[in-house]
């Protein structure tokens, strides 16, 4: 089937078998292998990308369902030598070891910070009607959809805290 995806700001026309997942369309058809396949069943988060600005698991999505949609992958954030604040903070804080879950962690963090910015609550928010803060516990819960078997979670959380300001996310407690 003919579809067009807007990937990292660029229109990409594709002819895909309906069985091709959005993840495989990116990795195999567009050669954007930054999005990783860890489980192919929505159980690890390594394939996290932004779909129309929201983080999703690309493995549990069919490419044909996303004709005309806007997709942001890790390749759309920054490149070696020109890292985004989140990417640079992951390097600085050793927010990874083997690196395989890392693009998914970073894309998830990107989407997660936007969700916090919109005031979405999480399962650890004490008061659902309050606007949540960027606390360590909130980060941990909101990043729990991204497994890291090397177990770099402390570095991941620190990187997100460090980068949040530069990513346009201001800590409420700091602002107040």
């Amino acid at each position, binding site marked *: *089937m003919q579809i067009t995806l807007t990937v990292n700001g660029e229109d990409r026309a594709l002819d895909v*078998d*309906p*069985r091709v*997942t959005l993840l495989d369309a990116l990795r195999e058809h567009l050669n954007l292998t930054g999005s990783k396949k860890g489980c*192919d*069943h*929505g159980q690890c*988060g390594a394939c*996290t990308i932004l*779909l129309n600005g*929201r*983080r*999703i*698991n690309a493995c*549990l*999505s*069919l490419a*044909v*369902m996303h*004709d005309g949609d806007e997709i942001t992958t890790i390749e759309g954030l920054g490149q070696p030598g020109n890292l985004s604040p989140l990417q640079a903070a992951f390097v600085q804080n050793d927010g990874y070891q083997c690196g395989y879950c890392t693009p998914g962690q970073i894309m*998830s963090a990107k*989407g*997660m910070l936007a*969700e916090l910015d*919109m*005031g*979405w*609550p*999480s*399962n650890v*928010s004490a008061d*659902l*009607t309050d606007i949540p803060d960027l606390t360590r516990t909130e980060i*941990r*819960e*909101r990043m*729990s*959809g*991204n497994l890291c078997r090397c177990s770099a979670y402390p570095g991941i959380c620190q990187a997100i805290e460090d980068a949040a300001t530069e990513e346009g996310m201001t800590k409420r407690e700091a602002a107040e």
Partner: protein
Amino acid sequence: MKPFDYVRASDAAEAHDTAGRIIAGGTNLIDLMKHQIETPSKLVDVTRLDMHEIAPSDDGLRIGALVSNSDLAAHDTVRRDYPVLSRALLSGATGQLRNKATTGGNLMQRTRCPYFYDTAQPCNKRQPGSGCPAMAGVNRILAVLGTSDQCIATHPSDMAVAMRALDARIEVARAGGGTETLPMDDFYVLPGDDPSVETVMQPGDLITAVHLPSAPTGHQTYRKVRDRSSYAFALVSVAAVVDTDGGKITEAALAFGGLAPRPWRDTDVEQVLLGETPSDALFDKAADVLLADAKGHGGNDFKIPLVRRTLKAVLADLTGVTR
């Protein structure tokens, strides 16, 4: 994943395709199709239909079937008036999955029974009459209520448990025309002799919305017990709406997850509580009624005492009984 035809429905009529299988978020269906547990020959993509709204209705709230789990959990009215629903949604899956998963799809998601997932094994849900290896197998996460001798699968949703406590009704547009708004116990079918039938949905039917009645009085909570602190299905969960007045329980709506093939509610349990003074002994009586017919299969025996403890803690919290 077997080859299939893909159709994007541009209106409701196209969605009512009796030869097709509805797909929206796809977070469960695509998973199952990769394993060939689900093998639809035609997928009907309904995501571009106009069912994304959460809107006040005459008696409560109407939630469009395509509203994502994230949007529903974060909706101001839901957070304020139906916190049990928001909490249940937020306790399920992950941020990524909740962004994709829809209200209708969540209701339709299938069991996590490991034998259902293993196509090398028999399963009465996949192939009626083939047998149920879960009964004498590894059944730690499986059901203790509402089972049959054919199937002990649980319904894995958190959202649906909260909706059951809230007396939600499911709006179904029938393929043959007409719309029905079904109470959840009429929507879900217990396994009985044929566990492959899980709901009253027929080919070409479409869930269009979920209706919540006006916000209940009293305190609401959703408590989920699981093996890890996040990103895990419930071992047991309790959705509760409870109110007290003058030291007596005046409102009690209780639904349970992780226990049964559908979000489980037993109004007899609530009758035990209504009009009574909350106490530890009363809560035990309620649990006795809930669990009168509970049956474990070895690995899941623990769910029976666990849900008793959890229910009692929830009731104590909501009624202010000191533990």
